[in-house]
């Protein structure tokens, strides 16, 4: 049995001659890991996921899911994966329990409705009509529908966008439980904290291509460095080459009205920066440092913020 849950090589999806949604995307997701697909809106994440889910057919590329190909093993694959689409409205006038029962009936094997209710924390809402649920409860139910079959591979497309904190944490627990059982999760998100917390590895997607791939920590260290120093100086009388020449500073980029510096040794870089500003007769109007994050990785790689 293949060690990979998903192998995807040279994936291309062209909707029309002008619209190229996925442009030669390569991806390898290992069994038992939680893999995050990160990228701005329109980067091609959802198209990629829907191709992997067997909903869309690719224009070109080679894809194996759980070692099988959609063209030959569609029915087997559908029975072994669980999915949530970015937006699905379930039948308004059915109860939580009835909806789970409906989805459960499509699978030969899987969890009981009771077990799924517990898993997504909807026991108390079992008798409520779908249209009476909150947004977070609806999303949890959608995830519940994906879990009725005990899938080996779970796809979550933007599962926590716009959710209340409680529902978000509940979904994080679901992902943790999947991993604990050695199952695989592929999720897309634009919450970087979520990706750093849940994902063993991530791929950053932009313009239909993977532009970086690795563990969150690896990516941050490789692309950005360990710490980020952001500052603004009055009149902006600072030049980039001067900043680059300072001790301990590894990267320089504009950030809003000021600058963002990536550094590996904060205790060296900060005194050097302050001394430099002092020589120029400038006092920083704002100065802050944070541990470098995936957000910084994205900005460094694309020059844009993730949620622009």
């Amino acid at each position, binding site marked *: 049995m293949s060690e990979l849950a998903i192998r995807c090589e040279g994936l291309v999806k062209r909707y029309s001659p002008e619209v190229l949604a996925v442009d030669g995307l390569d991806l390898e997701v290992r069994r038992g890991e939680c893999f995050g697909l990160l990228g701005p809106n329109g980067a091609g994440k959802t198209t990629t996921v829907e191709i992997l*889910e*067997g*909903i869309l057919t690719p224009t070109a590329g080679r894809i194996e899911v759980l070692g099988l190909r959609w063209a*030959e*093993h*569609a*029915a*087997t694959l*559908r*029975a*072994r994966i669980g*999915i949530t*689409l970015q*937006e*699905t*409205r*379930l*039948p*308004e*006038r*059915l109860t939580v329990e*009835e909806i789970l*029962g*409906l*989805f*459960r*009936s*499509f*699978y*030969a*094997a*899987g*969890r*009981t*409705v009771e*077990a799924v209710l517990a898993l997504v924390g909807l026991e108390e809402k079992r008798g409520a*009509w779908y249209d009476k649920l909150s947004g977070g409860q609806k999303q949890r139910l959608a995830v519940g*529908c994906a879990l009725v079959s*005990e899938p080996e591979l779970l796809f979550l497309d933007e599962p926590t966008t716009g959710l209340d904190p409680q529902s978000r944490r509940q979904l994080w627990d679901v992902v943790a439980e999947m991993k604990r059982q050695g199952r695989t999760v592929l999720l897309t998100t634009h919450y970087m904290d979520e990706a750093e917390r849940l994902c063993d590895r991530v791929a950053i997607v932009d313009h239909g291509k993977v532009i970086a791939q690795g563990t969150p920590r690896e990516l941050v260290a490789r692309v950005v460095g360990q710490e980020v120093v952001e500052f603004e100086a009055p009149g902006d009388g600072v030049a980039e080459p001067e900043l680059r020449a300072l001790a301990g500073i590894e990267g320089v980029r504009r950030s809003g009205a000021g600058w963002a510096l990536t550094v590996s040794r904060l205790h060296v870089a900060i005194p050097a920066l302050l001394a430099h500003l002092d020589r120029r007769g400038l006092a920083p109007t704002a100065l802050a440092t944070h541990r470098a994050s995936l957000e910084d990785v994205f900005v460094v790689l694309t020059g844009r913020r993730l949620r622009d």
Partner: protein
Amino acid sequence: MIDPAPAPAPTPAPRRSPMLQLALARFRGFYREPSAIFWSYGFPILLTIALGIAFRARPPDPVRVAVVAGPQAEAVRAALAAGEGVLAEVLDADAAARALRSGQAAVVVRPGSPPGYALDPTRPESRLARAVVDELLQRAAGRRDAFAATVAVTAEPGARYVDFLVPGLLGMNIMSSGMWGVGWVVVEDRQKKLLKRLAATPMRRGEYLAAFLFMRLAFLVAEAPVLVGFGMLAFGVPLRGHVVDLAALCVLGALAFAGLGLLVGSRARNSQTVAGLINLVMMPMFVLSGVFFSARNFPAAMQPLVRALPLTALNDGLRAVMNDGTSLLALWPQVLVLVAVAAASFALALRWFRWS
């Protein structure tokens, strides 16, 4: 699509049939929606009541006669009142003239020898009243009839407007609940991306569609008897043919219109589009297929078109079974139209159906 499944893991709970679950989901969605229940059951019954009252069979209107007051007035009034369905009243000359003008009286009789009649000959009831009055007075004056003709009364159930109407409403109801209940609901599921979600499960796609047919037939079991039973009890509408023939026609009609609904909903992406399409398909049939008046009123050149419409076939068939007691075998042209529409629309709908 079918390939060898891997050895199934032990199932913790008995699995319920997906067909049953899908059909149950349809039922629940329906009966938890009060407006759907009204349109399926309440509306046709209200329509039957309203039209049944408006076109109810009434006893013949009485012949109203004014007799001008005078010495012989009372004798004339008594002679007239002896006639069946005649209301005679003695009034003074002015009041009698007023009664004639206002339609209170159809004819004014001036007693005398010979008596005089005043009437407006352009009013049919006045000409009728004159004939009735003249005959009664002639007989009272001693005229003998040359013969007594026999009369057969023909105002029997099966020939009244309400008898025409109830099968038409039943046909119309089968059409609209098929078109809306399948076409609209399918497109709603597509718009909600529920179709896409369901298609990504191992659900057999045919089962999703079959659940609609199952549901339509089950609702028919409730719809048709309610309307026919109401017509029979409230208006004495006849059911002269075999109830099995009637049921078979209803089932064929339900299948034909469920198929058309599915066809209309097979590609539309939003419910406004499908609502327009449904009305586009149904409107010509409301007008042409003889729901409220006979389709034979249309010119002969249009008849082939009118006859080919599934609602015409259904309505003609229902009327023939209920009012004339025709057997289903004799209705083979209607049956053929319904079967052809059902088969063609399902075949095309399945080919064109869009899951996402």
